[in-house]
């Protein structure tokens, strides 16, 4: 469903990514791991159209998508969250999710100000869907709060709800568990499982928590200094010499 072919990215002579190939199949939960600065977030930014890769191509459902602006990529059904949480701080929790449905709704200027029946119906649907999503991530009670007033873990979950409002087929999660405690991580794992099953999603996630990655991902790729040094099942990755050497460290 998602295929990266020979992706390289240079920033002013610095090679952040070097000939990375990656294939994510439909319905997979795919993990992307590697030390800080390995290029994981850069890869996300390339997939979502924020960066244009220096070389190589991004294919989504067989179509070449690199070169499209981010909002078009989103409209193709790729939703994402951000490592350094990017919520609409001074909007309510509910409105954050409602903005998320922008790509899959239509209301235009005149319909909106005239309050046409079509638009009202759409607004009702948006509200209903957003509330369902908030229910799912457990934020329904906080829907009138400002997003900035949520706790860290809640903000991460809100970002997921917002990304889901896009009705994506592919969801990119950038360190969804960062800053969460053990209980929150447990809840997050079941949430990821749940949305993957329920919405028939394909998920690509970047995460540092090995426990989480090893237990929910079917397949994992390891990046190091912009190169892919391994990919395979969690078992294969755990036993891969190069991965142990450069990232996991010697087993205790």
């Amino acid at each position, binding site marked *: 469903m998602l295929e990266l072919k020979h992706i390289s990215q240079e*920033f002013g002579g610095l090679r952040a990514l070097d000939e990375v190939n990656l294939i994510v199949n439909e319905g997979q939960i795919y993990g992307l791991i590697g030390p800080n600065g390995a290029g994981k977030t850069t890869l996300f930014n390339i997939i979502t159209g*924020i960066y244009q890769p220096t070389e190589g191509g991004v294919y989504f459902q067989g179509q070449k998508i690199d070169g499209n602006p981010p909002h078009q990529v989103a409209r193709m059904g790729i939703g994402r969250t*951000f490592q350094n949480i990017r919520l609409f701080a001074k909007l309510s929790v509910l409105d954050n999710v409602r903005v998320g449905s922008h790509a899959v709704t239509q209301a235009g200027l005149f319909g909106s100000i005239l309050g046409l029946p079509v638009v009202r119906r759409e607004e009702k649907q948006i509200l209903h869907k957003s509330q369902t999503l908030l229910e799912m991530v457990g934020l329904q009670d906080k829907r009138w709060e400002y997003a900035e007033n949520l706790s860290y873990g809640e903000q991460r979950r809100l970002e997921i709800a917002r990304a889901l409002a896009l009705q994506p087929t592919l969801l990119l999660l950038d360190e969804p568990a960062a800053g969460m405690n053990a209980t929150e991580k447990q809840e997050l794992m079941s949430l990821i499982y749940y949305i993957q099953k329920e919405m028939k999603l394909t998920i690509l996630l970047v995460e540092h928590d090995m426990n989480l990655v090893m237990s929910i991902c079917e397949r994992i790729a390891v990046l190091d200094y912009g190169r892919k040094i391994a990919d395979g099942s969690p078992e294969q990755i755990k036993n891969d010499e190069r991965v142990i050497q450069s990232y996991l460290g010697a087993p205790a």
Partner: protein
Amino acid sequence: MFLEQLLNGITLGSTYALIALGYTMVYGIIQLINFAHGEVYMIGAFVGLFLVAMGANIFLALLGAMLFCMLLGMTIERVAYRPLRGKSSRLSALISAIGVSIFLSTLMALLAQTNTRSYPEVISNRTFNLGSLELSVLQISILAVAAILMIGLQLMIQHTRLGKAMRASSQDLDASYLMGINVNRIISATFAIGSALAAAGGVMVGVYYHAVWPYMGMMAGLKAFAAAILGGIGSIPGAMVGGITLGVLEIMGVAYISPSYKDAIAFGILIIVLLIRPQGLFGKKIVKKV
């Protein structure tokens, strides 16, 4: 004819540059468009006139105006900007700056009683010829003073402890604070230096055009802000080049296009430049961080 216009443009432009430096330095550190800066320039011009009228030598008057405006700049920062810092958006600070600007121009209008006051001829307007070019002592003095001030500023920024701290603060204010730099003092010093330069610009414009008036700060401030943007806001060499470029273009526009479109020409060029180079001539291109 062309060379003369060029020289006129550079003279006018060097005064824009002096004012633009204050905008760009303050902006570089606290990202505030200090709208009261044009008024500091205007008050500098009036203080200079006052001292000259008291019988002071023009250079003493220049120094006096610079000193006065240093204190004025620091006071403005202390009273109107510092209480807002850290707890409000940049736009509230902008409105506060506009408030100060209205306050100062009205205050000066009340104090000065009349609208326009004329500067006496303190520097001889004698001209001499250099080839086909006609130069006046006045123009040369202005260019010399502007050059000395700008070179002095550059040396100060590059080589002194204060300059280093200012450069660090403009890179990252929070990190500088953590490194033990007294950020409030640096900001205060930035306002002081910027205001002194604006005052020098004010006195020079007063001497050059023989007139000062309480509302002269508004348009000059706008032009200088345009010059700072043209050069790339936050960049000191940018403000210098931007000021001189704007001055030259304006004089050329008046000479070769039409004097009645003077202000429109300057802003029109600015808009075109920004459309081609959105970060200004010397500004750093901002890479989107995600």
